[in-house]
């Protein structure tokens, strides 16, 4: 052959290869909810860049609300079209599952986000600064707290309308998280929703230092958790030669199709599987706030702007439990006997620690944080049930819990004194006499947290306990009722403060909110009562959504 020919073959080699690469097939219709939210988030950033400052607030609010509503509509459309049951599929080249649990949880996240946008947009609670109405967020996030730049920003009446696109990015990550069908997508989704949340946590208008401290803590500990998850993913790849859920499950169950040559030495090594699985679970348990990975919860809940806390407490829990369920039920079911004892331990300490430590709290946001830990324990009791009713009970509980949480934190934003929100419990004394309606609404949320019948909290608690008992975890039910009894004590304590004690002179006042927060609270109350009195429709919904696609 001539030298020319070899050169030519080189050219042809490099020219031929790309032709074999196929364009990825993306099921746009099935992924529409995620795409809509991401698109709106990008659009929101453009709005920040190009629109004049005075037009941004209304544009951003509207954009976020419309995007979330249309994403929700497409989720409902998908579910109505049978994509949750008969037409469930794995989309996006194996990276995302579109099935019952994913759609149910995406719907819940979107509902929560929609209500959260209302509280984000609230501008009547804080007294107007220099004639401009302001919200709960810092005037200029980058300005040093108390510095000249901040004062100038406040004086100019700046507001951080960036919170809306940031929120949308977080929502996009939260939508992907419970649907992720391989470990890398899971990790990317985790980062996509975590980073915006870290930023949101740092944005409180009042008590900025506390807020920034919370954000740094959240970020550092969250980074650790992400690292655990990533390390676990790597080990899992070493074990299975793949990161897709279905592929790993196949290797675990033993019907291996083909050996991945690059990791042939380590494939099937159980040590990698167990360590990798444990690290992944740790990363997820951090996000749900289970003991012993709960340390960040109280500080972050307290420091973050209250609307953000409400959103985060509700939506992160929903998404993270979704991801946890999928890992345990799709990837690791063959390992039930390996992870069960450990998870039992986690469930028990989570329920007990959350309830016991909450008793000593004096700040209402920290109290709700510890209560969220205890609730994570209750939900985990349903997770470890490993029965179909376990899945549906967890789905239902998450729906019920998120709206109680959103509502409760929305009420917290109303009780204020000169320094902003009055979160110390001593300031809540006598609230029932001063503003009976607000106190009564908060009491409803507290009773729902405590799991009193005729509220959604009771239905949810019964559902998970029932699932746990059916799954042979009667002991968890007993620990669950004991910690419920302990938890009841501190919910009742708040009710005592509000209703049975005389108001103190110079106590806080209740700000009159605009229709936005009022709607958010009303939705919370309505969901709490409806799920308590007539939950059958939603139980059906959760029951139909209870099957994972592989």
């Amino acid at each position, binding site marked *: 052959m001539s030298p020319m020919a070899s050169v030519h073959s080189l050219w042809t080699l490099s020219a031929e290869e790309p032709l074999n690469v196929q364009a990825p097939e993306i099921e746009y219709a099935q992924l529409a909810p995620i795409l809509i939210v991401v698109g709106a988030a990008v659009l929101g950033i453009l709005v920040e860049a190009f629109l004049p400052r005075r037009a941004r607030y209304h544009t951003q609010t509207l954009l976020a609300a419309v995007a979330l509503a249309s994403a929700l509509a497409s989720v409902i459309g998908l579910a109505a079209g049978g994509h949750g049951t008969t037409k469930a599929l794995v989309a996006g080249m194996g990276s995302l599952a579109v099935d019952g649990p994913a759609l149910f949880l995406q719907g819940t996240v979107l509902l929560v986000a929609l209500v959260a946008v209302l509280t984000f947009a609230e501008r009547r609670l804080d007294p107007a600064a220099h004639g401009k109405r302001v919200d709960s967020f810092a005037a200029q996030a980058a300005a040093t707290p108390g510095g000249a730049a901040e004062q100038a920003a406040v004086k100019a009446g700046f507001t951080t309308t960036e919170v809306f696109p940031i929120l949308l990015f977080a929502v996009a990550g939260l939508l992907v998280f419970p649907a992720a069908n391989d470990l890398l997508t899971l990790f990317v989704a985790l980062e996509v929703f975590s980073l915006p949340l870290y930023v949101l946590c740092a944005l409180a208008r009042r008590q900025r230092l506390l807020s920034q401290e919370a954000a740094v803590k959240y970020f550092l500990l969250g980074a650790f958790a992400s690292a655990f998850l990533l390390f676990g993913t790597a080990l899992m790849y070493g074990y299975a030669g793949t990161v897709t859920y279905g592929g790993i499950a196949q290797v675990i169950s033993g019907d291996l199709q083909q050996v991945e040559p690059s990791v042939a030495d380590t494939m099937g090594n159980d040590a990698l599987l167990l360590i990798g699985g444990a690290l992944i679970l740790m990363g997820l348990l951090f996000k749900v706030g289970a003991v012993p990975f709960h340390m960040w919860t109280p500080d972050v809940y307290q420091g973050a702007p209250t609307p953000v806390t409400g959103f985060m407490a509700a939506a992160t829990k929903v998404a993270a439990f979704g991801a946890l369920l999928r890992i345990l039920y799709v990837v690791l079911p063959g390992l039930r006997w390996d992870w069960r004892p450990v998870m039992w331990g986690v469930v028990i300490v989570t329920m007990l620690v959350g309830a016991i430590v909450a008793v000593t709290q004096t700040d209402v946001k920290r109290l709700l944080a510890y209560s969220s830990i205890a609730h994570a324990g209750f939900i985990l009791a349903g997770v470890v049930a490993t029965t179909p009713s376990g899945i549906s009970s967890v789905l239902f509980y998450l729906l019920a819990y998120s709206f109680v949480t959103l509502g409760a934190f929305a009420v917290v934003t109303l009780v204020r004194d000169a320094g902003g929100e009055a979160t110390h419990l001593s300031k809540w004394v006598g609230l029932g006499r001063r503003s009976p309606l607000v106190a009564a609404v908060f009491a409803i949320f507290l009773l729902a947290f405590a799991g009193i019948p005729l509220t959604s909290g009771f239905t949810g608690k019964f559902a998970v306990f029932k699932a746990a008992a059916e799954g042979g975890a009667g002991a968890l039910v007993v620990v669950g009722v004991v910690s419920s*009894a302990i938890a009841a004590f501190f919910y009742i304590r708040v009710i005592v403060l509000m209703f049975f004690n005389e108001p103190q002179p110079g106590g806080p006042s209740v700000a009159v909110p605009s229709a936005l927060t009022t709607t958010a609270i009303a939705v919370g109350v309505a969901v709490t009562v409806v799920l308590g009195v007539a939950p059958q429709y939603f139980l059906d919904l959760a029951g139909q959504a209870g099957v994972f696609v592989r």
Partner: protein
Amino acid sequence: MSFPLLTAAAVLPAAGAIATAAVPAARRTAAKWTALIASLGTLVLAGVVLARFEPGGDRYQLTESHAWIADFGVRYELGVDGIGAALIGLTALLMPFIILAGWRDADPAEEAEGAGGDRPGRRWRPVQGFFALILMVEAMVIISFAATDVFLFYIFFEAMLIPMYFLIGGFGDRAHAQSDEEAAKQRTYAAVKFLLYNLAGGLIMLAAVVGLYAVTADQLGEGTFSLQRIVEARAAGELEMAVTTERLLFLGFFFAFAIKAPLWPLHTWLPNAMGESTAPVAVLITAVMDKVGTFAMLRFCLGLFPGASDWATPVILVLALISIVYGALLAVGQRDIKRLIAYASVSHFGFIVLGIFAMTSQGQSGATLYMVNHGISTAVLMLVAGFLISRRGSRLIADYGGVQKVAPVLAGTFLIGGLATLSLPGLAPFVSEFLVLVGTFSRYPVIGIIATAGIVLAALYVLVLYQRTMTGPVKESLGRMPDLRPRELAVAAPLIALLIFLGVFPRPLTEIVNPAVEHTLSDVRKTDPRPDVPAQDLEAAK
């Protein structure tokens, strides 16, 4: 489909509660009348329930059944047997009197109006709240008495704690020896203690309810809470519970009921709650709400877990016996009138539990009658005591003396209430106490004899109470104490008339109760012990 009478009897007070709460803040009298009319309407409905109830008919009558939460196997199932019907009657009967007696209890104190500084908000409406909460309790109690679905019962058994908690904690007795602040502290303590005790019991019961579901789901194919379905399945041998499972479930249920009843040693919340709340609320607690506990023992403990009930009987009888004697002894030693009545109630609840677990037809009929009669007699005694206390502003026995000289009608009604409490023949409680003792004696003679000591002690605490407060020289501090006002007399007189009527003619009550008791006894597969008379004596008698 026939008219859902039982639902209506529960919905009416609930609707009344909402209507009462909705009355504008300034129109307190309108709120009171709304509440009173709602309670009278409920009384009419309860009367219809009793009239429609056929003693010889089906076990559960006026039944209603609707799908509710299919996922949990829960149905909205109502139905009454004679016991439930009698207790619904009692509840509806007492309620107008409770409301009438509490007519002024929630009015804001005069001094609070004028005080400057920090006044309660414009929307603070204690009167509306007080009566609305009372009606809420009534609605929930009625549903509990009518529920034949365990889950449905549990929901209202638990939910009624919340309005009751607000009644105890939010509307305390103003007659307190210490300062207002101290009174508020005591009241809060009582309310929290009440709620925590009962909530703890309820949560333990929740575990047992979940367990019951798991057992039925495991054995019947689908989980169910229907009392009738479970009892039938047990009778047909479809549902076999392991011995340990049955005992644990029984204990879970019984624990909750024993707290509510209340049985020694779980009774300690009652004196606090009754002492610190207003007299009408104290009556609501002991005469109405606590009956749900003893009623549930009969309906659910014995019905669902016959074997375990049998197993636990000796221990429960001993606890009941301790309640009888210990409650009575502590009543003798009390210095506070309302706490004395509370301990007397502990003693009486001991009798009720004794009658239930003696497992004889006289014992259980007696226990059911006892629930009704104790409700009425305690209502008389407590409400009149409340009238007395409101006059002097003190609950201490030592602050009274010679009241019968200045307020003879008050003293007289108080005496009748007291005599009913000590079960004087001719008054209603005598019949029930006698039946309980006879029923107990025929199976457990020794326990019957010891229980009789309760009667002697009852005579002691009632008569000493009367002697110290009503007789002797008139205390200076009493001043010119007014006698019973017409409203107060309207509370006391009908109840006293009823006590006398049921004392001499208890048949209308026993007629509806007895068939239900027979059914309950057949659930636990017990028959009355045969009279133990040697055969030759019979021969000789012939």
